[in-house]
């Protein structure tokens, strides 16, 4: 049974993961920081982050579990640069750890990257650790 990790401990580990993966300073890693817009993450960094999270927390993360793919290039889910109703539903299902309330107002495809914040990653890892402990 893994020792219960507090939210603060999880945050600190994630902070180190993001410092290593994105070469940013620790004071840039605040809960609301967006991985792409604020911390400069590129697509390959997401693979790096997943590998580093697996190692740091001893968990297995399927690719696309944390950062889903194959949604924005599907015509059912995107129309005229906006995510459709169906697409929004898929995002909700695939990203239970993300806060979609702001995104829903505009639904712009460009804004999808901004769903991934430091807080999103923290919530994702906490839910993984909980399901592992259960």
């Amino acid at each position, binding site marked *: 049974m893994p020792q219960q990790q507090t939210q603060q401990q999880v945050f600190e580990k994630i902070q180190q993961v993001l410092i290593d*993966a994105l070469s940013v300073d620790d004071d840039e890693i605040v809960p609301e920081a967006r991985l792409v817009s604020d911390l400069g993450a590129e*697509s*390959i*960094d997401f*693979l790096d982050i997943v*590998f580093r999270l*697996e*190692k740091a927390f001893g968990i297995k993360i399927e*690719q696309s579990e944390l950062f889903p793919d194959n949604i924005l*290039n599907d015509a059912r889910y995107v129309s005229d640069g906006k995510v459709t109703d169906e697409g929004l539903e898929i995002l909700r299902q695939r990203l239970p750890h993300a806060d979609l309330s702001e995104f829903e107002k505009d639904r712009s495809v460009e804004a999808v990257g901004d769903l991934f914040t430091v807080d999103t990653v923290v919530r994702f890892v906490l839910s993984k650790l909980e399901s592992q402990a259960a």
Partner: protein
Amino acid sequence: MRWIWIDRIIELQHGRRCVAIKNISLAEEVLHDHFPAGEDHPPLPVLPNPLILEGMAQTAGILVGHANDFREKVILAKVGRATFTDAAWPGYVLRFTAEIVRMDSAGASTTGTVHRLDPARPGDRPAALAEIEILFSHIDQARAGLDLPEHNFVFTRDFLDLVSQGGMRLGAAPAQKRFQEPFL
């Protein structure tokens, strides 16, 4: 990876570890310019660090490719960290040791060390030269749907021959080693 920058694979453990060596020769043209003599100083031939990085990329790339029996096109995606603590002189041998840290269908992260060996002093402890972390992507997985060539343009015949010539088998096999202590 269409040019070969390492000379020989001396150890290959499927999905775990690859060790390769490269001999540094003063005949290599890059050493003539890096760095030439000046009016007030003699020449300083040292291998540029990016070429040390290339040696590790090839060693680790073969390790990652071999882990999937060379079916995936393995592309260097990111150098996570590269620290260099000493210089690579002609007449010495570089030893690249690469290990897989994590791997899945999308790619692999690797960590590696580079040592400098002195053939004139085979009993000496190898000098630590660099530590390098590289992330590789399986390009077909990352770019599904794009118009990439069918054939594996990463692992050309040259690379597969390099593995074979080191005495290693191309497919999965138990730990394969071809070297003698204490030199290596």
